[in-house]
């Protein structure tokens, strides 16, 4: 019929393909950058270096999974960096105090879920904007951690505590966790009703409610999962080195949010995938490393990294806008 709108052709693609293309482009950027830097300095392409980039930044990718869920559900969290600092301290303290390794690993997961679920509940049921709640929590965690520990470093961690040093069939544990977490989260979000509820809540909370999705419960669940992924990220983050700083890593939340948004998670909620955010975390880490490899003046690395992130974001927005339907209604 003639009444079919002009955008029919572009829209007839299925969502799987649509999301896949977003991820393919990021993957292309990851590979393209590696090749480009490889021309300037072939050492960049050494297996060891590529592996180290993944290893050293897996925790950011893992935390970005939960952050992506939070953003897709229409919220944001800026307390996650501080939370990771707190969880690392708790985990390390337990290990040093002689708790069984399993306890030292599981407690931060549970605590992460607890703290985030509590924040989610305040956001969902008391209807306080997430940015306010998490900004407050950022202060509380940061100040609280120093109050309690005085910032005393945790050293002499037992050897068994170092989860990040283990491997599965030769693949280092941080990469295993990153890949497994991304894959599980991606499948869950794509293929289960509770996963789809996140998109529904972020896309149109009112409509979600009338479809039998409980948006409030969904938000709490999303925050709880975000806490779980923050806990997982902590396990990698805290067990990689021999020392735990007992402070909150400054600016980590921005790195994580950046990975999520560069990964194509719409900041307005309702769209995006965690595969994208993981690829973006890798891309950002790759840029950081590449800037050293091509001998950029160290004074200019931060500016260049910022510029590259900005360019990626703008390119993505323009690409999406071209695809989106014209007109005022969306």
């Amino acid at each position, binding site marked *: *019929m003639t009444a*079919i*709108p*002009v955008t029919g052709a572009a829209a*007839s693609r299925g969502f799987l393909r649509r999301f896949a293309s977003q991820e393919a482009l990021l993957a292309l950027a990851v590979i393209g950058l590696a090749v480009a830097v490889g021309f300037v300095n072939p050492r960049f392409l050494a297996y060891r270096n590529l592996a180290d980039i993944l290893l050293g930044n897996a925790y950011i990718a893992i935390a970005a999974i939960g952050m992506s869920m939070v953003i897709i559900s229409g919220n944001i969290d800026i307390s996650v960096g501080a939370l990771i600092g707190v969880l690392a301290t708790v985990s390390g303290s337990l290990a040093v105090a002689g708790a069984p390794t399993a306890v030292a690993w599981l407690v931060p997961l549970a605590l992460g879920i607890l703290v985030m679920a509590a924040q989610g509940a305040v956001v969902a049921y008391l209807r306080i904007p997430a940015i306010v709640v998490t900004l407050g929590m950022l202060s509380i965690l940061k100040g609280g951690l120093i109050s309690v520990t005085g910032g005393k470093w945790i050293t002499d961690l037992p050897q068994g505590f170092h989860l990040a040093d283990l491997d599965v069939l030769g693949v280092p544990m941080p990469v295993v966790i990153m890949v497994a977490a991304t894959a599980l989260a991606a499948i869950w979000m*794509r293929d289960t009703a509770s996963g789809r509820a996140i998109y529904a809540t972020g896309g149109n909370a009112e409509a979600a409610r009338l479809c039998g999705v409980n948006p409030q419960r969904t938000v709490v669940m999303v925050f709880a999962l975000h806490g779980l992924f923050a806990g997982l990220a902590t396990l990698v983050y805290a067990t990689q080195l021999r020392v735990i700083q007992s402070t909150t890593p400054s600016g980590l939340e921005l790195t994580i949010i950046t990975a999520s948004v560069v990964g194509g998670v719409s900041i307005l909620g309702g769209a995006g995938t965690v595969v994208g955010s993981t690829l973006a975390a890798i891309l950002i880490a790759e840029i950081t490393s590449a800037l050293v490899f091509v001998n950029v003046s160290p004074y200019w690395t931060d500016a260049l990294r910022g510029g590259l992130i900005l360019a990626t974001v703008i390119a993505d927005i323009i690409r999406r806008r071209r695809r989106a*339907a014209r007109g005022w209604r969306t």
Partner: protein
Amino acid sequence: MNAPLLDVRNLEKTFPGVRALTGVSFDVRAGEVHALLGENGAGKSTLIKVVSGVYQPDGGEILIDGRASRFTSPEDAKRAGVATIYQELLLFPELTVAENIFLGHAPRAGFGRIDWRAVRTKAEALLASLEIDDLAAGQIVGSLSVGHRQRVEILRALSHDARILIMDEPTAALTEADVTRLFGIVRRLKGRGVGIVYISHRLDELFEIADRVTVLRDGAYVGSRRMADTNSAELVQMMVGRRIENLFPKTLVPIGAPVLEAQNLVCHPMTRGVSLTVRSGEIVGLAGLVGSGRSELAQVLFGITPAERGEIRLQGEAVRIDSPEAARSRGIAYVPEDRAVQGLVRPMSVLNNFSLAALGALSRFGFIDRAAERRMAEAGVKRFSVKTSSVDEAAGRLSGGNQQKIVLGKWLANSPKLLVLDEPTRGVDVGAKAEIHRLMGDLAADGVAILMISSELPEVLGMSDRVLVMREGRLVAEFDRAHATSEAVGGAMMGGGANRERAA
């Protein structure tokens, strides 16, 4: 005889300070379309929200298949087979048609995973069962027209095996063609034994599709009629409690010099070379299907999407309209199609909405003269008889008709020379509709040139001095008042006739 599917008895609902429903009763039988009629604020919306479990009643009872039921949530109602299609379609723009249909109750594969293949197959089966062939299960909903989206909503209701379907003004945003298709679907559902509660302001529609009608006024039950035993005059009287003589009070006024002369306007992709003239005192109706480029043309004239090519002359002077600000300063006013999104800043007060388009005139050196602003708003409230407790009330809390009067009123404060009205009476009750039509007549008499877009053919035919028909981004036909019949205009809209025909 079987019990009715849905039987509502003596329903009461009170909100703090307001008795929203008092003693309302009606029933719906299998295979029946039962219409609810009433002015905005008569209690129709409250009634359907009670029936669909959004609100709990304070008194009375709801019987489903003769059994008393209490719904504590919309899910409860849905489980009992009551589904509701709201006016503002509640869909997820980022998701596909199939996913929208099955969101919340998708078929599962192992481990709780959604069986995407089954989702798609079942969606396709549903589409096929209603013989909808211009919609694919994999399309992204965000790219669909309103008519298509509504079909997705209907399919969603059917996917729940709904036996009672409540449709709140389903045709408000539809074109004639989509209305026809909707009615086809409704008849098919009737045939399957689904009971339908149908709310609409368009009386002609009810005579076409409904079997019975119940009229509400001020939250109270007025009466029920079989459609076959009643007529519009009676229904209107029941609704408003008084007689309305003429819905289209078109007065003939002398038509003056051209105000707007547009030559070959082009704006990719929906405006493809449009030339038109609107004269002082003239009301020009612009008819066309949704997607024919009517609203897009209006937005070109108003500078929201400025013309890429072509010429606009206002009162003989060539002008560039490259922004709404430029349009306003040239004396163009535009009452947009989507009141909630484009017309009104709902959380703002009536006062601030009234002055929004006239802030320049109300201020000196950028400072708003608040006393003048209040005078203006109060005068507007009086002139357009806006029903509001005070001008400080949030505009979003008013009924649709009163909201529309504010949107219209805020533009009239600028004394425009050209008024572009896009669906000026959509979702507006009969009384307010007549008032808006009368106002249009008064403005024309004052020499304002009016370009009116409407999907309601009787309105176009009743109000216009001249009718232009748009199709696929071009003007394809023009009729003067005498020759504008629904057959001729409708035919041109659908693309039946030859190229630009002139019936003079």
